[in-house]
């Protein structure tokens, strides 16, 4: 893999970095270098805040290879405060019930482990927003 591409994928995965279209200002995630709205070149990096709320969610009980030790895990569509939706696992839920509209924030966690080669892959997940007690 080309080095710069690899580096950008890492920024996408670790830091939730996308792009903003210089022509129509739409925020883009995942980054794709072409604006899905106006079709023009869009390579300007954009750092999302990592805050948002749950838009939809599901709990996966039939996991693919590499994710079986996490079962069951909750996958959500998160509406970022800057606009785009992102697909990610929810974490640190403890006993908390997930519901549409739940405020969440991004954290970095282990995504999967490749048993035989022992490779661990890290990236973003979202947890319920920690708020000071009222």
């Amino acid at each position, binding site marked *: 893999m080309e080095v710069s591409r690899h580096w950008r994928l890492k920024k996408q995965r670790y830091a939730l970095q996308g792009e903003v279209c210089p022509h129509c200002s739409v925020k883009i995630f*995942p980054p794709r270098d072409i604006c899905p709205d106006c079709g023009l070149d869009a390579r300007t990096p954009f750092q999302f805040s990592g805050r948002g709320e749950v838009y939809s969610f599901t709990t996966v009980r039939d996991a*693919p290879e590499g994710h079986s030790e996490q079962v069951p895990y909750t996958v959500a*569509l998160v509406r970022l405060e800057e606009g785009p939706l992102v697909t990610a696992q929810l974490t640190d839920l403890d006993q908390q019930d997930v519901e549409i509209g739940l405020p969440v924030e991004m954290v970095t966690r282990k995504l999967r482990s490749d048993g035989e080669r022992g490779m661990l892959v890290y990236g973003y997940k979202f947890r319920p927003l920690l708020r000071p007690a009222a």
Partner: protein
Amino acid sequence: MRPVVVAGAGMIPFERRDEDSLVGMMAVAGLNAMDDAGLGDRAVDAVYVGNMASGLFNHQVSVASALVDRLSLMPAAADRIENGPASGGSAIKNGFLAVASGYADIVLVVGGEKMREVIGPKATDIVAAMTHPSAEYIYGVTLPALAGLFTRLYMEKYGVTREHLTMVAIKNQENGLLNPYAHIRMKITMEGVLTHPQAHINSPIVADPLHLYDCCPVSDGAAAVLLTTEEIAKELNKPIVTIDGVGQATDTHTLQERSDPTDLKAVTVASERAFSMAGLKPKDVDVAELHDAFTILEIAESEHAGFFPKGEGAKALEAGETRIGGKLPINPSGGLKARGHPVGATGVAQAVELVWQLRGEAGDRQVKKATTGFSLNFGGFGNNVLAFVLRRKS
């Protein structure tokens, strides 16, 4: 373009088929379609094979060449067409274009998949690999997970209930009992999968709100159709069923990038394109085969294809309009839910069912006076969709 006739249709029962190879299954389905057409010693000009992942499931590639050799159809042209779960539909589209354009006079289209050769989590992983690599797949997203996210939104927006989802499963499994080719041949009840104290054991959660009986099984199988010109079809002495409309459309790879994730735009556009080519409207359709990989999809597709307004599909289902004998029977074959879903075979199996229905050869599940059929083959999670309109000529 020349009219294209489906002169032959054949398949093998979908199930777990440990004894058969992928190419072996496709060869039998292909022979069944050629026998059905009564092809005699006429030569097949081209073969299109719909298959998603033989390289991953079976460690075999170039399966179109292997199939031509197995059937001794050399020197026919041969291509394998991969388009995820819509591979079968894409193979039919290519066969249609070959005959319509005059490139070929006799075309064999075979769809097949052998999925049970690998263990469950591996199969789940291979299917999940069609999702976006860096925005979905790496986060443990599976096809049932996308369907779960979609289902929750659809239920919220349109008032679809768990009972509605279960009605799809019950109807399609009842239809499947009438189809000797169906993988799952078992009656289920609302009580057994929804309200009984053991319901959570009978139909455990796969990706909530979807339970086991909301999801199609993992199957092995193959299906085939023989396409030709009107001229040759008349010599073959079979009822004439033509492909009058072919539509295809795409949407964003990810669910997250759709401005309204409940809007299946590719289904709407592909269906409109198929109806427009056929010069027909959804109200002209007598029988439909939809891609119910998950129960919600039958409801959502029935609306997006234009049969019911948005939010009305569940009501039509509840009123019995989509049962055999109803106003628009949907999935008389049992659909993916009961017939099974050997991924690359599905789009072709839908066409096989329509041909049998339109010829009046569908046995106990025959839809009365069916002359116009519609099928929808849904690839990815709605990112590549094919729609077909088939008609019986009197």
